[in-house]
């Protein structure tokens, strides 16, 4: 009996997803939507595992620690902790830096266990909002998992939240109160918290240079624990992720731009979560580009018949408009500059990504950041000419060089615009 009602409940919760009408015929077995695996089934299996544990109004567990700041209705936004119904070392649940190598199922499974408490505040004027705000700030600064008790107004509900920038997470509920244990603050973030004269960009860069993980900095950044006292505010998680990537990327560029160029053309390749990556580095001054090719039936091209290609680029002076690709652009830019700084070199960087049909769900910008980092740790192929590098692309990518060049602002410029040294 209990089982049937559970299934009904699940079906109801996921009702909105099956709009094509095909799902009821397919029932997750025939792949009628054309996707590699059924996204409904992936969600269902992870819900099945954790749902019974979440069927409570008071949830106690060890938060990894994790917080979430919503963006709808900004500056009146919902903030709150992410709490799993379990104890012990849960830190991996909110540390994307440790997720590479995991399958989409693993990631959804982990994230669905995190229940989000919601408490509405004014993001720009949070100091009057009381104890919960202080608790959330403390939680974001804490280094190790910490016990949290959340008192919800009703039982948590809702589907797994999927977003291209934010890591997925589980059900949510309005929260009336929360209690939390004591934990030690992360050293660098604590310093930033108490320094009310330090500007937020400098705080971010200091923490990064002293070895704090990007995901930790982002959490602290989103809950208004950095910056000049009067200008502190809560920043929606989605925005804060991009802000951190942008701030750190720009700071790295301040150095890398002036280093000598690399010596030849390099190609790095990498594959993960059915995303195929190729990173070309050219021996020239800084210019950068991210091109993403979405196959039909992948997350952001669900109904198309053709491959969707989007690209954004910048030259030496950088860009002033927001990249229309979004956060991924800044994440990949930061990751490639990490390598350039390590080698004390500069280069023109082209990041090309093919999202193949197996990439059925968005898992967040970390996917781009961590995969570019990993790709750049592999041994690269060296070529004397751009032709050699592009021939490499033809060998490993499905999309051929002509299509890439057509969509590449940097390469178009490189091939059309002559340079002074061509005329010596």
């Amino acid at each position: 009996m209990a089982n049937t009602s559970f299934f009904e409940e699940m079906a109801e919760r996921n009702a909105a997803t099956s709009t094509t009408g095909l799902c009821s015929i397919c029932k997750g077995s025939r792949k009628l939507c054309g996707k590699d695996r059924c996204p409904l089934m992936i969600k269902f299996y992870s819900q099945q595992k954790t749902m019974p544990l979440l069927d409570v109004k008071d949830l106690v567990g060890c938060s990894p620690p994790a917080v979430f700041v919503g963006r709808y209705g900004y500056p009146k936004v919902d903030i709150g902790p992410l709490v799993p119904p379990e104890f012990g070392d849960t830190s991996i649940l909110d540390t994307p830096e440790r997720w590479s190598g995991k399958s989409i199922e693993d990631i959804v499974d982990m994230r669905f266990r995190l229940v989000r408490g919601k408490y509405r505040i004014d993001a720009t004027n949070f100091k009057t909002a009381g104890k919960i705000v202080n608790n959330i700030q403390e939680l974001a600064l804490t280094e190790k998992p910490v016990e949290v008790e959340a008192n919800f107004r009703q039982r948590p509900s809702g589907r797994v939240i999927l977003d291209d920038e934010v890591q997925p997470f589980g059900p949510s509920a309005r929260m009336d109160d929360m209690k939390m244990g004591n934990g030690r603050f992360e050293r660098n973030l604590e310093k930033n918290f108490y320094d009310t004269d330090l500007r937020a960009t400098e705080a971010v860069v200091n923490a990064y240079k002293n070895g704090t993980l990007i995901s930790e900095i982002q959490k602290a950044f989103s809950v208004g624990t950095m910056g000049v006292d009067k200008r502190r505010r809560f920043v929606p998680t989605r925005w804060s992720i991009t802000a951190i990537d942008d701030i750190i990327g720009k700071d790295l560029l301040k150095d890398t731009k002036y280093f000598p160029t690399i010596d030849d053309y390099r190609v790095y390749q990498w594959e993960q979560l059915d995303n195929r990556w190729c990173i070309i580095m050219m021996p020239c001054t800084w210019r950068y580009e991210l091109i993403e090719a979405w196959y039909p039936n992948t997350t952001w091209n669900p109904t198309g018949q053709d491959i969707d290609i989007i690209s954004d680029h910048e030259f030496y002076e950088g860009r002033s408009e927001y990249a229309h690709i979004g956060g991924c652009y800044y994440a990949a830019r930061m990751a490639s500059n990490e390598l350039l700084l390590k080698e004390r070199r500069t280069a023109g960087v082209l990041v090309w990504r093919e999202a193949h049909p197996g990439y059925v769900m968005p898992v967040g910008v970390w996917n781009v950041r961590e995969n570019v980092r990993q790709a750049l740790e592999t041994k690269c192929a060296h070529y004397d000419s751009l032709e050699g590098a592009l021939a490499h692309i033809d060998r490993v990518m499905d999309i051929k060089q002509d299509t890439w060049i057509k969509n590449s602002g940097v390469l178009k410029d490189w091939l059309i615009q002559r340079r002074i040294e061509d005329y010596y």
Partner: protein
Amino acid sequence: MFKAEIKSETLKGLVSIISTLIDEVKFTVNSDGMSLKAVDPAHVAMIELNIGAKAFESYSATETEIGVDLDKVKSVIKLAGPGETIIMEQDEGQGRLVFKIGNITRRMNLIDTSCMNDPKVPQLTLSANIGILVDQLQKGIRAAESISDHIALKADSEGFELSCEGDTDFASLRVEKAALESLKADSKVCSLYPLEYFSNLIKAIPSGTIVNIELDDDYPVKLVFKLANGESTVSYFLAPRIESD
């Protein structure tokens, strides 16, 4: 050793031309004057500048190199009022450049020039040669902006043309031979250039200056003009865009 006095307007004119390309530069100094060769970071444009000793109010120097950050020099120029004289002196012991404007003293650390190599200057023989008042070019640039990111420079035996063609719009400036200062073009020549570089430079040239344009088919353009009452010569090279199929 380097010590010179210069009118603030003259210094401003020189700095604004160089800083369209690059911020950190190395001047080679000798007893006759200062010179500079620099390419922009993307290696698309190049500037060669010679400032004769007569461009200064007073000038005395022996052979040396001075590396400066032009952004800082700009902030120094802002300290000077119109017509004021700026005194520059190299402090060799400390590796500094000292500016004196009236009763203000401003010291700045020089940039290490040991790793700044002078770029080679391309040796070009370009068939067309046009002398034109910069005000004409500035008018043409204003018409071309926001249409496309590149412009075409054309010359034939009848005149000179600057045009810009975008996806939907078109603009051009045609100057007949009579309105030009000089024209030498045996055949028709045409090349494409990046608009941003060209317009940044043209806008920085003071009005009334005569610019000498050397042009050829799908070749760099060479712009030659004088600054500082004719005592300083600028040669500017800009590499073309070549649309191949």
